[in-house]
């Protein structure tokens, strides 16, 4: 296919190319692949999330977590890609969890929360006048057991025991395939997650890592000391 033909299928998200591809969705995945890497690892009692934070300048004040967010104190979201797009999805997750609680008086579970996000993301790949979200999410929760679900810019969801999104995700997943074992302790899962970030990025300074655990006690961000110890 030459350049001119391809441009015709680039114009809208709702237009398939003759070989069945949605170029705008693929470009959105590319936006995710350029974002700083984010990793999730399930352990016996919970899920560990870890993300690399890349600041443009040392002047950036980093007192607030940039890539990890809690929902209702019981779910954790880790994002990669366009930060502004991710922020919208994080708030959608919070509104969705709140709506479920208001409607049923019960908390939502991890698959339902992930599906609600994915349904919204998918709509913007099929409706005119929109562009896809340039962000992918890892949704972590503890239902009957620790659960980690990836939501990608196409609106697909997939459940993983250990996963990575963002730049170098292929290398991070390769590391996880080697290192992951069932029934990990949270500490070991944290070490594996940080190592996977190292596989994804050339050099990882522990002070550039954000990490959180999601377990029966809920969502908790980890201190810089704890991250440095596990590195």
């Amino acid at each position: 296919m030459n350049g001119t033909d391809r441009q015709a299928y680039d114009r809208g998200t709702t237009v398939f190319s003759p070989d069945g591809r949605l170029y705008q969705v693929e470009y959105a995945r590319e936006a995710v692949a350029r974002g700083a890497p984010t990793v999730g690892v399930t352990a016996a009692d919970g899920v560990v999330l870890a993300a690399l934070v890349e600041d443009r300048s040392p002047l950036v004040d980093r007192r607030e977590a940039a890539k990890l967010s809690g929902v209702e104190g019981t779910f954790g979201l880790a994002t990669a890609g366009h930060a502004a797009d991710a922020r919208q999805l994080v708030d959608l997750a919070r509104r969705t969890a709140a709506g479920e609680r208001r409607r049923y008086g019960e908390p939502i579970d991890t698959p339902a929360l992930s599906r609600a996000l994915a349904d919204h993301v998918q709509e913007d790949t099929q409706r005119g006048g929109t562009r896809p979200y340039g962000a992918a999410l890892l949704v972590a929760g503890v239902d009957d057991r620790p659960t980690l679900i990836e939501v990608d810019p196409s609106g697909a969801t997939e459940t993983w025991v250990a996963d990575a999104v963002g730049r170098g995700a292929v290398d991070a997943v390769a590391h996880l395939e080697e290192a992951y074992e069932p029934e990990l302790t949270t500490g070991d899962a944290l070490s594996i997650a940080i190592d996977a970030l190292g596989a994804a990025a050339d050099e990882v300074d522990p002070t550039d890592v954000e990490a959180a655990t999601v377990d029966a006690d809920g969502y908790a961000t980890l201190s810089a000391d704890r991250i440095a110890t596990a590195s």
Partner: protein
Amino acid sequence: MYGDPERPRNAVQSSRSPGRHDHTPTHDQTYRLSDTKPAADDEATVAETGTTVVGLTTDDAVVLAADRRASLGGRFVTSKEVRKVEQVHPTAAVAFSGSVGHIQGFVRTLRTEATLYEDRRGHPMSVSALSTLAGNLLRTNPLRVTPVLGGVDDEGARLFGMDQGGGVLGDEYAAAGSGTQLAYGVLERRYDPDAAVESARETAAAAVATASERDTASGDGLTLATVTDQGVATDVVADPAEVAA
């Protein structure tokens, strides 16, 4: 306003809070923890329950107390173990009288909004903000709920009495429900802003105990909650006289 912004306006009936937009009860009987005497024609069809709820502040805590009776107009007891004090925030609780269905929806919405606020801001909402939220809910929805809201935050121990029109009045002590006047009789005589928490608990229990003696719509024991900066501790007592000194 407090609905899910994602929810379409013509959402099916089951997806909204109970009775939110209803003035008229859809059931034959509406259970109430009553704050007012029902209109004569209501009395035959609308289930009313009488209630005495009180709240008082100490230096660093709020005590909320309520009886445990639900009734039809104070003439037939429909439940002897109603919990009329509910935690809605890490360090705040609400004691309430009114229609049971409206109360349940009101409490569910307050809790949900408080959690959403904490998710978004990274810290719990102030008790003052919580009272504004509760007042907005009452003003913009025809809820038959009269709450007393108490909590502890950076400002210290805060107590707010509310009405069905959404009025929010900060006070050191307050009462609501059909036993209001009896309870205030005790509170006016015994309230001491310098009292220790245990003494405030005794005063709250005495107010509910006194109202339970003469208000036919109040009785069947006591729910007593103590709110501090550590959280909300709730006790259930069969006889308020056990606590009232």
